[in-house]
């Protein structure tokens, strides 16, 4: 499992770990029921603090992506597809919001944006799988 930690971005370390594990769950690279590394061993392998790793796992649990069974470990939860979709939708909405703000400042019209969307969608339809996995944060 690849997890890449960067020190030069503003994103907190625990969030970097959380997001990357989450992306792997969404992309089905990590499958429901799969056992995740223990907090301590992951902390050691990533050379980050135990509490940072615990914060990442706690957030994943809160969002329903993993489940911790005391004394056994942390497992990928049975996927609640609706929940994941809802989350992804929010993400998309946020990004479109940013795009619209930029467009408004620069005088780009709604029509132009719609055209852009049509073009982008046309391309991505050919490779749906990629569009889910593709976005890198």
């Amino acid at each position, binding site marked *: 499992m690849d997890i890449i930690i960067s020190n030069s971005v503003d994103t*907190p370390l*625990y969030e970097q770990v959380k997001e990357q594990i989450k992306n792997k769950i969404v992309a089905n690279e990590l499958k429901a029921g799969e056992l995740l590394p223990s907090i301590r061993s992951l902390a*050691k392998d990533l*050379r*980050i*603090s135990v*509490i*940072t790793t615990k914060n990442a796992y706690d957030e994943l649990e809160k969002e329903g992506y993993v489940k911790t069974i005391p004394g056994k470990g942390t497992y990928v939860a049975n996927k609640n597809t609706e929940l994941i979709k809802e989350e992804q939708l929010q993400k998309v909405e946020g990004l479109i919001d940013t795009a619209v703000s930029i467009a408004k400042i620069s005088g780009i019209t709604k029509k132009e944006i719609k055209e852009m969307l049509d073009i982008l969608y046309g391309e991505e339809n050919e490779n749906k799988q990629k569009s889910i996995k593709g976005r890198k944060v």
Partner: protein
Amino acid sequence: MANNNKNILEVKNLNKEYNSFKLKDINLSLPKGMIMGLIGENGAGKTTTIKSILNLTSIDSGEINIFGMDMKEEAKKIKEDIGVVLDDSFLSEHLTPKDINQIMKNIYSNWDEDLFLEYLKDFKLPLKQESKDFSSGMKVKLKIAIAISHYPKLLILDEPTSGLDPVARSEILDIFQDFIQDGESSILVSSHITSDLEHIADYITFINDGKILLSKTRDELLEQFGIVRCSKEDFEKIDENDYEKYKINKYEYDVLVSNKKEFKRKYDFKVIDKPTLDDIMLIYIKGEK
């Protein structure tokens, strides 16, 4: 019932005065399975704090609790389960690791010879060579091997990485993370090389002029604190309650805030940097409020 206390080490209102130096109301708590970094300038009181915890120097008042026992009353019992690495080595440099093994076997009832030999192998230390010929990194690794070969539950180290090159320092951080893998053992480590502790320490305690300025989890400190860099006019718009300290530089003000998210919500400032421990230390020590 076993001791329910999940803190391995607790220091309460520790005070100590000698010559012109004072430790004032030091409070610390270190939970099981965690690493705490004690940071501060040279002369801030790190070594005195450590020596007070270890009962190596008398204290004027306060309480030191380790493994749920009072250090004053049960020092001998407590020390069986502590590993210590101090700056001054108490062993002659003319001894080889093999000699040291013989000596330690007689000192600690729970000294594990095989474990010690295994550490020597792991750390690539020669068995039959006098330690005076070791590099500084090897000397520190030997001290650590000595300190952890009797299964201590608490490892206390004073400036173990000072004077070491980045490779040796990184190897020592690996040893630390291995040591806490069981979830039961903890480490208290002082350093003025803050970058060593920035990632792996769970708690950061910042001591200055004999007082504790901050003691927080690494994430609270490094992910929530921020440094606002702004002009004088902008600085004057900030409410006094919304920052910790500020420092005036030639072209800008550096303002330390303890919750950058909230700050961003309230003010419209462009530059809020993620601080390093050094940044935080510097503004606390040199800054004003």
